[in-house]
């Protein structure tokens, strides 16, 4: 079965998010931990900036959780650059055992799911799951030079600058990871690389359907069902596809790509990138769940698994979506880090 129900041991202890200047002007600006003023981070290339960004995110997340780098057993990470260089170079700097992952923009959910499984099986105590993307480094790898004068089609999406890290731990906190679903690779024959939403929506539909039926839950059981980066068009398509499967998505459905930008910003169908779901999860969702506004959240990060070479050779775009179910546990206090440390000392 593609859904794995956990044994109530894995908790989302803390999260940290950093976004770029444009994202920092969007509707979620008050929730992000840090908003960059300069998206180069004073580095000489955008690849270096992305690396620095991820490194800062991971270190700050660990600090925020009250743990030390030496307390972290594994680092699960990935990004969009070829050979996931941002993550591996970050792991080099942090000197942590590294498990490199790639599911394009679904990497955050994959990292969370695997982290939670590691903790749940009792293999380790604390792990960090992190991803990030940078608009400028993604553009030069996937599309055109930044200064090239071209018009984007209306279905295009805007890769966000930003990312997030989550500390998954067996130390109790208010947010527990309840179940994870690993998605199948679904391809409905879309070949337009400027229409990622349409390419990924069938994968999101398949994963959500599988998760709901395996968990024997309804859409209304969730306070929030959050897809990664389908964008405006992709979300509309998902709603239609789900309706076709006789599942009605209600007002509790949202998409990170649509949430992160303002309607007035020239970002076409909305945000995309591995950092998209990572930053929204570790800011807005984390905040709302800690407060108890959301009691059950399903994060469904979506990714398009093509490369520039396969696209040029006329291949269609396969999509993937992984789901992570988070539940609110009010009885667990915030000081559980301190408590567990005391226990160790005794």
């Amino acid at each position, binding site marked *: 079965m593609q859904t794995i129900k956990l044994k109530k041991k894995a908790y989302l202890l803390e999260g940290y998010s950093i976004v770029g200047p444009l994202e920092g002007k969007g509707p979620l600006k008050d929730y992000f931990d840090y908003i960059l003023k300069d998206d180069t981070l004073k580095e000489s*290339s955008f690849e270096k900036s992305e690396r620095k960004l991820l490194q800062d995110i991971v270190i700050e997340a660990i600090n925020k959780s009250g743990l030390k780098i030496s307390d972290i057993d594994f680092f699960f990470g990935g990004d969009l650059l070829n050979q996931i260089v941002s993550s591996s170079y970050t792991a080099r700097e942090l000197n942590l055992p590294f498990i490199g992952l790639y599911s394009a923009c679904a990497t955050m959910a994959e990292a969370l799911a695997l982290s939670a499984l590691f903790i749940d099986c009792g293999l380790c105590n604390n792990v960090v799951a992190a991803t990030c993307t940078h608009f400028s480094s993604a553009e030069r790898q996937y599309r055109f030079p930044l200064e*090239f*004068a*071209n018009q984007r089609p209306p279905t295009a999406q805007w890769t966000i600058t930003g990312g997030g890290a989550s500390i998954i731990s067996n130390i109790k906190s208010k947010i527990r990871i309840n179940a994870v679903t690993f998605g199948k690779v679904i391809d409905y*024959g*879309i070949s337009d690389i400027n229409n990622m939403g*349409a390419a990924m929506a069938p994968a999101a539909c398949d994963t959500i359907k599988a998760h709901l039926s395996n968990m024997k839950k309804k859409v209304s059981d969730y306070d929030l069902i959050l897809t990664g980066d389908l964008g405006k068009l992709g979300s509309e398509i998902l709603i239609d596809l789900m309706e076709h499967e006789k599942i009605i998505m209600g007002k509790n459905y949202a998409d990170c790509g649509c949430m992160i930008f303002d309607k007035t910003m*020239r970002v076409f169908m909305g945000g995309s990138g591995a950092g998209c779901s990572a930053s929204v999860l570790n800011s807005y969702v984390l905040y709302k769940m800690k407060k108890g506004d959301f009691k059950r959240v399903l994060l469904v990060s979506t990714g398009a698994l093509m490369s520039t070479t396969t696209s040029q050779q006329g291949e269609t775009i396969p999509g993937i979506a992984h789901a992570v179910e988070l539940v609110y546990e009010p009885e667990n206090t915030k000081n559980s880090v301190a408590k567990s440390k005391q226990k160790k000392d005794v």
Partner: protein
Amino acid sequence: MDKNKRNQNYNLYVESKVPKTKAWPSLFKAFLVGGIICAIGQGLFDLYSYLFPNLAESEVTTCMLMTIIFITCLLTGIGIYDVVGAWGGAGSVIPITGFSNSISSPAVEFKKEGIIYGICVKMFTIAGPVIVCGVVGSIVCGFVGLFI
């Protein structure tokens, strides 16, 4: 339902959902931007003819083109020309300024990978196909012209 049919239906459905670019506003913007660029070119041509009356017409044209190519490279480097292009579309692409931008923008972008593997290799990634098509086209036209 077999896969091909499902994919075909899905593609048709997606196509019906995709917002269409409005033709008239795009055409107007392209005409305006392209027109302004051409007017600047003509202005420079007239200015050079007035300043240097001894120059032949072809030489004045060359000077005008050099100036306009330089201005575009400069505007590309300081991040203005891509804004013009995003608004004006084909109006900024068709004149020689578009060609200039398509060569200078990768040169700026890939400077980090070094002079040989960065600038020299990547400089013609966008303009290369245009040059190849132009050369091949002129060869074909030349042959046709020879036999007519």
